[in-house]
């Protein structure tokens, strides 16, 4: 396998954006990431994006995203109807094939345009589940209930995780749900979607993200301390909630093992936990130890631009490696009801 590194990462200042359309959201982020990469736009070999037509309210809406990336002269380009973390996976594969040495990956979505928790109810089995319209919060809450009842986590564990994410978000200029809140304060609040509390639920967020990855020779020529992708794996589980163990996230565990998470200590982990209980659950599935700093960015509980949040996890770990502070980190991305599909990426600095 070729060595590939993350060398640039930019995300928009997120929130409820009533001013820009998707293209205007993406353009500055792509410009910033390309500029940061040190590679000329037309020397970037491949472009892949991740988005969801349903966030824009119509078919083919991903096409407009192309207007933001300068696809002229024509470019090698693809798109996945998935979180942009999987777009990065497709780009990584393209570099492994060998005909490109670098790639631009971007994700985008404006969740504030609609009731996303209702809209994404349409991800469910169209015959048995979708006609009942359980929202994504309802589904997550069922998983949280199962996890609590099985004893794999506790209300306090969940509150500790959520509170820590909101506190960490204070140092993240892109976060919108930062708060100096303690676990006790979280526990004192009502369960609005039992057993979940509002602090356990990611905020509605608009945003875009762009990342540049490159093969070793290019990465070393433009980046002092590339964040090397040492392992990147993803797995999917059957969708029906009844046929899988909702307390264990088997696909995360399998992806983590295949990616070699446990091969060495993990200093930092960015987990795509959109609900408080997912934090402890995923940390267990990833095999993280007590020494790992989890979601120093605040994670999705601080800011959750759909279709971008998974890729942002990869960018946040990479950024901490470039800064020199971190030698080895893990990024996780998820999609589908109740953590149905998961991607795990192990990143390391040089000499790690």
């Amino acid at each position, binding site marked *: 396998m070729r060595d590939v590194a993350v060398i640039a990462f930019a995300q928009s200042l997120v929130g409820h954006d009533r001013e820009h359309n998707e293209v205007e959201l993406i353009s500055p982020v792509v410009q910033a990431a390309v500029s940061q990469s040190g590679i000329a736009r037309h020397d970037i070999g491949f472009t892949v994006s991740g988005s969801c037509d349903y966030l824009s*309210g119509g078919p083919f809406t991903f096409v407009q995203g192309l207007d933001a990336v300068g696809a002229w002269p024509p470019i090698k380009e693809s798109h996945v109807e998935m979180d942009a973390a999987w777009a990065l996976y497709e780009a990584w594969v393209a570099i492994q094939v060998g005909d490109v040495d670098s790639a631009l990956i971007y994700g985008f979505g404006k969740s504030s345009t609609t009731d996303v928790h209702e809209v994404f109810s349409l991800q469910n089995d169209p015959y048995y589940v979708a006609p009942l319209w359980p929202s994504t919060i309802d589904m997550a809450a069922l998983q*949280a209930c199962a996890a609590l009842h099985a004893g794999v986590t506790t209300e306090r564990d969940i509150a500790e995780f959520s509170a820590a994410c909101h506190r960490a978000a204070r140092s993240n200029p892109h976060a919108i749900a930062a708060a100096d809140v303690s676990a006790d304060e979280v526990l004192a609040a009502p369960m609005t979607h039992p057993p979940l509390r509002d602090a356990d639920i990611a905020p509605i967020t608009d945003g875009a993200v762009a990342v540049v990855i490159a093969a070793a020779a290019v990465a070393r020529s433009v980046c002092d301390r590339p964040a090397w992708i040492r392992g990147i794996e993803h797995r999917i589980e059957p969708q029906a909630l009844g046929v899988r163990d909702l307390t264990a996230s088997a696909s995360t565990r399998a992806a983590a093992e295949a990616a070699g998470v446990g091969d060495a200590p993990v200093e930092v982990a960015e987990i795509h936990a959109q609900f408080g209980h997912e934090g402890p659950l995923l940390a267990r599935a990833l095999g993280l130890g007590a020494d790992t700093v989890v979601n120093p960015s605040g994670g999705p509980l601080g800011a959750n631009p759909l279709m971008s949040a998974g890729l942002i996890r990869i960018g946040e770990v990479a950024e901490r490696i470039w800064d020199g502070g971190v030698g080895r980190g893990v990024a996780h991305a998820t999609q589908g009801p109740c953590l149905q599909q998961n991607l795990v990426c192990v990143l390391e600095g040089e000499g790690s």
Partner: protein
Amino acid sequence: MLVESHVLEYPGGYTRSVGPIVGRFLTGLRDAEIVGARASDGRVIVPPLEYDPTTAEPIGEFVDVGPGGAVTAWTWVAEPRPTKSPLDDPFAFALVLLDGADTPMLHAVDVDGPDAMSVGMRVEPRWRAERVGSIRDIAAFVPEGSAGPTPESPAPTTEEREPVTGIVSPVRLEYEINAGVAQTKYLRGLAEGKVIGQRAKDSDQVYVPPRGTDPTTGVLTEIDVEVADSGTVTTFCVVNVPGLSELAPEIPYVCAQILLDGGNTPWFGLVQGIEADDVHMGMRVKAVWADELEASAASIKWFEPTGEADAPYESYREYA
């Protein structure tokens, strides 16, 4: 900023054929019965999946399950969604493990409040009086013993005794879409009877209508350029398909690409005021504005011929 409400809905709902396995389950529901199917590892899966989650092989034989069962997980829906949620008043969603089943199914539980819910509580289905072969034939689960007698479906016609082969799924989603900076400028321009295009800083290519960027570079188009409301038809077609749009004129009508004077991208619009057969490439046209202008694309109703001599092919060849 300009914001518009948008509804995404396929009129009448999606018509989904269900196949024999899902069909058997739904037919059972219509008869107030619940079946599961046996997987290769012996588990009885409810509702029956068509394909074994472990082996991917077709699922095994059907097994009667329920009607009672136990809640294995639950949550509370304090704000039901009108016309969507299974119940109008606050209710619980739960995973219910029916007697004889090895996997729980998701459904609603109708109780007064979250205090009435607990993992392990026994429940049974309350059947809808009119059952059609849908997961909603179960109105909700209720505490065991409180469902009352199963309502008889109205006397079945011969047609109704046929196995269920399909369901209809209404899907209506609402959005608030904002126009974005570039389009807002352009639409506000229309409200003043002007056509405002945009170009990027280091380019002289004027985009009209502007969509936010110069797509060749991806850079935001930040410089406004007013263009004329007249131009040249670069190409067109005669539409003879009725009913494509509520706002379409009578067929046949002409949809054209029009290069506005001062602009560098074709504008898609109607051409009227001339027999469809007489429309031709190179024809000079001018916008016909609505009587009342507003910040909307409807401010320009259509384009009509000006009567000028045709533009020479070379002047628009690059655009056609």
